[in-house]
């Protein structure tokens, strides 16, 4: 396939570009400028990885010397206790036995901002997300929600602070209708004695669900049909709309496009923008680099439990991101 070839060529170009000025300038290590340091051929690795990350062949801007150093110096602007911070984790560390899942990871999401969290497998993305959700308690560092430091003990705590999440598996009950799914755990009951025995006010729930969906320009055919009859994109949209309906500060999304086709993925990315425009902070963990780089405002890259890049999305191209994620400049230097 020509596409594969162009990817390979592109990666060779990345490698060559980087090998000369890019690497030595970009790496902070003491050996960066030593020509006698053996270099590892990372092209096959990168090639494999680029497939995983849907690397597009649109690479036409060779990395400028010194870019990564600039970015890395800019890492972790202290989030400060600004009210504009929707959700942030600062210098989080988490150890599971001998495994250091997080060493020094920081991500801050401001209101109205989409932040993409990238990282190779095992970089600590999931652990970081779990810390933000209160599913794990970090060993060190602190969490901020709505600009204030918080302690999260249970999952309910984070929801009490107005943070909602869209799970990779969507967490929808397939046999329940859209309305019921959107209100699961937060059902609205009829006023009066019938409400005391738990009778649902499906009409009011339906109106609210409808409004929440319209708010994001999502149109579903019938809100009372079991969700399992809907398409993957529609289900994803419901999960997003549910999170937005209940969120007041931030929405966390885990791989929201992983199960979707090209068009549906694009729709979900546009949804993210709509969500951010509601004044919520949006944190997206994804492997879909091209789309996220296009839609996100800021990109944070984790590598081996540390935040190594925190920069505007416009500063990064897909190949650059891949090479930073897999840490190949570090590999070369050591």
């Amino acid at each position, binding site marked *: 396939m020509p596409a594969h070839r162009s990817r390979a060529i592109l990666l060779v170009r990345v490698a060559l570009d980087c090998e000369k000025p890019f690497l030595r300038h970009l790496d902070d290590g003491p050996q960066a400028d030593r020509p006698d340091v053996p270099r590892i051929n990372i092209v096959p690795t990168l090639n494999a990885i680029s497939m995983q990350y849907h690397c597009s062949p649109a690479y036409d801007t060779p990395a400028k010397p010194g870019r990564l150093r600039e970015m890395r110096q800019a890492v972790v602007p202290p989030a400060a206790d600004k009210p504009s911070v929707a959700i942030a984790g600062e210098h989080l560390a988490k150890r599971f036995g001998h495994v250091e899942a997080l060493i020094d990871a920081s991500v801050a999401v401001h209101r109205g901002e989409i932040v993409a969290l990238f990282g190779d497998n095992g970089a600590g993305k999931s652990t970081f997300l779990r810390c933000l959700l209160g599913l794990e308690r970090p060993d060190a560092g602190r969490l901020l929600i709505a600009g204030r430091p918080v302690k999260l003990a249970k999952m309910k705590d984070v929801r009490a602070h107005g943070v909602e999440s869209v799970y990779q598996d969507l967490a929808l009950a397939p046999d329940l209708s859209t309305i019921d799914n959107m209100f699961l755990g937060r059902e609205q009951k009829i006023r009066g004695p019938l409400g005391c025995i*738990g009778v649902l006010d499906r009409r009011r729930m339906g109106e609210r669900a409808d409004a929440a969906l319209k708010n994001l320009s999502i149109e579903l055919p019938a809100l009372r049909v079991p969700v399992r009859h809907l398409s993957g994109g529609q289900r994803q949209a419901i999960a997003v709309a549910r999170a937005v309906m209940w969120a007041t500060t931030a929405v966390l999304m885990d791989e929201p496009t992983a199960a979707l086709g090209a068009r*549906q993925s694009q729709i979900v990315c546009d949804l993210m923008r709509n969500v951010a425009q509601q004044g919520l902070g949006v944190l997206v963990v994804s492997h879909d680099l091209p789309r996220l780089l296009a839609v996100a405002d800021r990109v944070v890259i984790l590598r081996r439990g540390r935040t190594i890049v925190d920069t505007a999305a416009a500063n990064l191209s897909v190949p650059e991101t891949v090479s930073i994620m897999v840490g190949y400049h570090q590999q070369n230097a050591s």
Partner: protein
Amino acid sequence: MMTIAEFSAPPSLDHGDAGDDNGPSEFADHPLRAWFASSAMLVLLVDLAMIGFFSLVSRDHVFWSIANALSLLRDGTEPLVLALSVTLLMSAGLIDLSIGANLVLCSVISAMGMQELSAAGLPPPLVASLGFVIALVAGCAFGIANGLIIAGLRINSLIATLGTLGVGSGVALLLTGGQDIREVPMLLQSGFAQARLGFIPLPMACALALALVIWFLLRFTSFGMRTLAIGSNESAVLRAGVAVRRHVIALTALAGCLPGFAGFVDLARYGATTMMSHDEDGLVAVTATVIGGTALSGGRASVIGTVFGAALGLILFSGLIIIRVRPFWQLVVTGVVLIAAVASDQYRAHRVGQH
């Protein structure tokens, strides 16, 4: 046929790659048509066909008589109540094999309690009502025990209730020394089992009212919605902040009351405990529920289907006796219907699932 539009995309989107992910094109026909295609409806048709068949074939059309109808309604109370209990649990993806043991244990405890109370000189109406309460409370406690094992110890419900099936039957036999208790207030028979509400025997009227309550519970309340959601996707319910374990225990407690009620009906009907005739109750109830269209894995429940499913076993049994075919055929036919019902359900689910 109704076509489902994709959710609207912002105008900036490229729609060039259509066919990338098409929504389902057919699922929500007219609700009436959907109902006619449901398992419940199919089972009702089989029920009616069987009634027609037995009425025609039986000598002097005895099957089509008031006496037989009454006897069917009397016989049907216990299987129906037990099947309702199973339906409630199966909505959440749980299976209960212990309902037969629960029934027996409740009837034994209730009978012993009533013996004590009579000996204490309480008036019979009070003894009977207290016996009713004792049966319900015992059933509820049995259900809670099941719930604690399932939710607390995280043991699969099939295994948990297989265990409590043995424990319950064993304890009932230990309490009575293996002898059925025959001293039960006569009032139970005259005042409850033989009483009628209009045409319908009182116990069956109660059972139908229970069916209505359970249907309402599942369909219109947040308790029912969460129950179905647990059967549909338990981890989603957990992540929605619902205390799933507490809910499961509440559910088993509620479902446990029903065999308690059936145990009391049993006592009233026969004027004695019948410890040895409930070994297969659990499987019969599961059969009725599944035939009626409730999904074994939970998430979908049809209470009306359970009513028709419970009726089917009964009609077959009584009909075969009346036309003098050996009633063992009832087992064969019920088994075949069970498999056919599940197969047709899966076939339809598969067809709907094909997008």
